């Protein structure tokens, strides 16, 4: 029976090629998106799971009593080690690293790299393996370094580079040779080798190298190390609370003991919930979109199968006369739909393999290859095909098999006609989803446009930033200031500034500031930006009052600071002018600062948050810096950059010129929004394809049903355009209703999304009108093209079909 069913299913597919192809293509679009999202979710959930004893791997986090006291990611340096040594029954292992970055040179290759200066347990604790080198000794001696395969290829063009050396610069400008003692194999994503973003750390050094970089890693005062611990089996994180408290109490300075709580978080959970659960939110959002796309595709399938039933009616009738029971027929139709879904699945798998890179770039994560999945997963596509096939086939199977035998034999479609409203409702539902996704795509785009627009508060155009060698001494600052002057003398350059920060949301730290004479409890939390006096002019930040440290060229007074408008208001000055010349103090410091100027508010970080109080401190005073930001004159930008690069190499030999345009910096800041926009556009494209295929099927059915009517109308003198309009009208009504339903839904969803941003666009009617109008127009065009042939046909032929 099954063989017979398969045979007839195949013959029917071949016979109705158009219908089968439309169906398979539509379904495979939906399945493809679902597969991609499933793979994405799977790989996100798997991050950290391949580490050894993954369930017992934890990262220590810091909770300070006030937000500006320290970063939650880094911990007291000796803590993890002390825990391991004194509580061996609780802690099985630990790994700590200090993250630093500097210039690595090999011959004439100079790059800025990040390092993990950390414990040798890295190689034993996590199942990281070496392609070359000895795991036991690789991280034993200072001035040795373990690098990744990629780094080896980057510097040497090959992977077996054990015994070679690279030269690494420390923060006082000294270079030292480091011997490569190991080359790491590639390993799956985890929060050890890539903690902050998806960029993997390439260089690992023994903890003894900390001295070379002047890091005080033995001090209980040094709260800048990332710490991982592995618990003994059966130990709960709660059991660590008391030991941690004891250790801090015994060793750490009082202000740390009083203000800091250290707590372990499982690594698996850490990844999903970091950055306010960004990963988790993305997983949810994409899963919901994928679910709806799949539903749309399935609806199409149902619609097409039912509307296609006319051609099957006779067969159904005959089978019933031959003694086929309803259940036989249902089984037969289910076989057919499962087979069709299976083909769609195969097509989707093929498309998956082909489009994997495209989706990887959209989602900003590598989508696993088909071969990356465990072999057992091979069942999944088939199980999914069976499930979708049954779901999609069930309704048509029941509808078709319950026609009356005699009616089916005569080919009477009365029952089908009555159900047309249901199919229209389903297509309407699809239109609603497509409209919602479309409106969403437009609004997300508008908001992203707003991020990059003039409301940013400064002029980002023609600015490139590049990191400079780190020599945070007095002499270092003077040298940088003289280099700055040489760079700004270039004819292609209009201004240059030296600063620790560029407007990418990452600043050096925060503190609280209060008016001299006021109580320190009135202090306002503020973010620090360490810049020279050219920052405002380079970035085009307008001043509300006063000067930005000093008039350019004049010497900056070491006690002067500049604040932004928010801070002036927060400190109680309604007019910016009132703040100029006033004196403020920082909590925990006796120094008094004079406010030299007040800037307009500008967006240093993401527009998600409102502009916080900002205090500019002169780099000559704080003596920390990272970037030169160079404002180029409009014109041939690539020539200007070349000239800049030459001058840079002359002024700072050995320092890599790895520049970034401000636009790219911003794009990085709004990375997840941009990914969302890409994902929504792709979803929209797929939704559009599916909905149009749905319309195609329904119109085909409508034409089949009305061939005779068209003939009669033409005989009575109707024009071709009149007939086309007849069909378009039938669907425009559905689109209109769908649009009306979509509007409030889209409005609500997008308003919720926009509410996550302190600065956001106003939702206007434009996205709604554009979406509905465009969808209407595209559908009308499609229907027009499809009906043209019938409308132009000789009525004699259409009438003959009866």
């Amino acid at each position, binding site marked *: *029976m099954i063989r*017979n069913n398969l*045979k*007839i299913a195949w*013959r*029917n597919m071949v*016979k109705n090629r158009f219908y089968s192809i439309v169906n398979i293509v539509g379904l495979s679009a939906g399945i493809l998106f679902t597969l991609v999202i499933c793979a994405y979710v799977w790989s996100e959930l798997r991050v950290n799971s391949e580490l050894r004893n993954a369930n017992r791997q934890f990262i220590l986090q810091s909770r300070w009593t006030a937000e500006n006291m320290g970063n939650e990611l880094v911990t007291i340096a000796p803590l993890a080690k002390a825990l391991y040594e004194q509580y061996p029954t609780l802690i099985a292992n630990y790994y700590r690293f200090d993250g630093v970055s500097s210039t690595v040179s090999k011959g004439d290759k100079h790059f800025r790299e990040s390092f993990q200066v950390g414990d040798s347990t890295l190689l034993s604790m996590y199942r990281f393996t070496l392609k070359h080198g000895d795991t036991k000794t690789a991280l034993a001696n200072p001035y040795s370094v373990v690098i990744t395969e990629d780094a080896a290829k980057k510097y040497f063009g090959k992977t077996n580079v054990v015994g070679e050396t690279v030269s690494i610069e420390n923060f006082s400008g000294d270079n030292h040779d480091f011997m490569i003692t190991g080359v790491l194999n590639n390993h799956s994503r985890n929060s050890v080798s890539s903690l902050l973003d998806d960029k993997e750390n390439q260089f690992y050094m023994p903890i003894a190298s900390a001295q070379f970089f002047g890091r005080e890693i033995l001090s209980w005062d040094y709260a800048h190390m990332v710490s991982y611990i592995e618990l003994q089996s059966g130990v709960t994180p709660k059991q660590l609370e008391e030991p941690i408290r004891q250790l801090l109490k015994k060793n750490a300075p009082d202000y740390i003991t009083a203000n800091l709580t250290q707590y372990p978080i499982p690594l698996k959970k850490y990844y999903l919930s970091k950055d306010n659960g960004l990963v988790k939110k993305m997983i949810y959002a994409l899963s919901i979109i994928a679910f709806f796309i799949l539903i749309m595709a399935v609806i199409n399938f149902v619609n097409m199968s039912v509307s296609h039933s006319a051609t099957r009616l*006779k*067969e159904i*009738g*005959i*089978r*019933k*006369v*031959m*003694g*086929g*029971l309803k259940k*036989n027929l249902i089984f037969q139709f289910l076989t057919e739909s499962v087979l069709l879904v299976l083909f769609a699945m195969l097509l989707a798998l093929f498309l998956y393999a082909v489009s994997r890179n495209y989706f990887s770039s959209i989602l900003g994560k590598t989508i696993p290859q088909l071969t990356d999945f465990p072999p057992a997963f091979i069942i999944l596509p088939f199980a999914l095909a069976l499930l979708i096939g049954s779901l999609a086939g069930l309704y048509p199977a029941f509808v078709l098999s319950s026609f009356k*035998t*005699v009616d089916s*034999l005569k080919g009477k479609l009365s029952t089908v006609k009555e159900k047309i409203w249901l199919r229209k409702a389903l297509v309407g539902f699809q239109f609603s989803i497509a409209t919602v996704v479309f409106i969403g795509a437009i609004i997300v785009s508008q908001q992203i446009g707003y991020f990059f627009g003039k409301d940013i508060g400064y002029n980002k155009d023609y600015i490139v930033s590049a990191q400079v060698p780190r020599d945070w001494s007095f002499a270092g600052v003077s040298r940088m200031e003289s280099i700055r002057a040489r760079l700004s003398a270039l004819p292609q350059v209009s201004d240059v500034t030296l600063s620790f920060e560029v407007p990418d949301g990452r600043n050096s730290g925060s503190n609280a500031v209060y008016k001299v004479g006021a109580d320190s409890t009135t202090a306002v939390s503020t973010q620090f930006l360490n810049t020279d006096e050219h920052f405002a002019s380079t970035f085009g930040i307008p001043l509300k009052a006063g000067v930005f440290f000093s008039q350019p060229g004049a010497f900056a007074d070491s006690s002067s600071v500049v604040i932004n408008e928010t801070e002036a208001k927060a400190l109680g000055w309604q007019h910016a002018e009132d703040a100029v010349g006033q004196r403020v103090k920082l909590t925990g410091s006796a120094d008094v600062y004079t406010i030299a100027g007040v800037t307009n508010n500008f967006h240093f970080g993401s527009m998600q948050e409102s502009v916080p109080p900002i205090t500019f401190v002169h780099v000559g005073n704080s003596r920390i810096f990272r970037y030169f930001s160079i404002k180029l004159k409009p014109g041939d930008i690539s020539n200007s950059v070349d000239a800049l690069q030459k001058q840079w190499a002359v002024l700072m030999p050995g320092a890599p010129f790895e520049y970034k345009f401000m636009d790219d910096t911003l794009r990085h800041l709004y990375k997840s929004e941009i990914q969302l926009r890409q994902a929504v556009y792709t979803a929209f494209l797929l939704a559009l394809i599916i909905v149009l295929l749905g319309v195609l099927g329904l119109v085909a059915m409508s034409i089949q049903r009305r061939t005779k009517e068209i003939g009669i109308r033409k005989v009575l003198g109707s024009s071709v355009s009149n007939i086309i309009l007849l069909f378009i009208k039938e669907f425009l009504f559905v689109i209109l209703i769908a649009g009306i339903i979509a509007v409030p839904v889209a409005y609500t969803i997008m308003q919720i999304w926009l509410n996550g941003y302190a600065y956001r666009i106003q939702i206007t009617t434009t996205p709604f009108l554009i979406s509905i109008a465009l969808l209407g127009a595209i559908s009308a065009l499609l229907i027009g093209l499809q009906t043209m042939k019938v409308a132009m046909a000789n009525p004699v032929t259409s009438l003959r079909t009866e």
Partner: protein
Amino acid sequence: MIELKHITKWVNSGGNRFFLLRDINLTVKEGEFISIMGPSGSGKSTLLNVIGMLDEFNEGEYNFIGQPVHQLKEKQRSQLYKTHIGFVFQAYHLIDELTVYENIETPLLYQNVKASERQAMVSDILDRFNIVGKKDLFPPQLSGGQQQLVGVARALVAKPKLILADEPTGNLNSKQGEEIMELFKQLNTEDGVTIIQATHSERNAAYGSKIINLLDGRIEK
């Protein structure tokens, strides 16, 4: 074998009750060959459909081999007709996507006949009707007469007691029609199959042992 008592069937159309069958009383004994005659719309097909249990009736009683059809559930009825009745249609009603062999096999599939047995039965009937050479062709590749031959073969393959034929020669030319009627005659006399056919043609009707005339849903006395 068949006993129809006061069978009446109607449809409601625009508030009017329109009778398709009125008070039909008919008894058919096993081995009979009955021809139902009447003009278009007289109810011949409806009567055949009722006898074949494909269609329902509104009033009356129908006993088939002692079973009260009017009291049976759909499933039992289906069970009853698929084992005892074979159908032959004017438009052949073969499934275009199946080969001749598969078309003939279909009723056996629905009766859960075992594969080996099925093959034997289909081969037998192909042999008997001299269409072995055509078993792998699809219906549209055959002439009308050959298609109807397949239709009859399919009706007979499950060895039914009763054949219901609705204008079996309506789409055929006179020679092909004659062959089919000869076949029916032979089946009736040699195999003892009961046959009820609806027809327009006096000549075809004459093959039957008894003629019933229908007019406006009534049996003309």
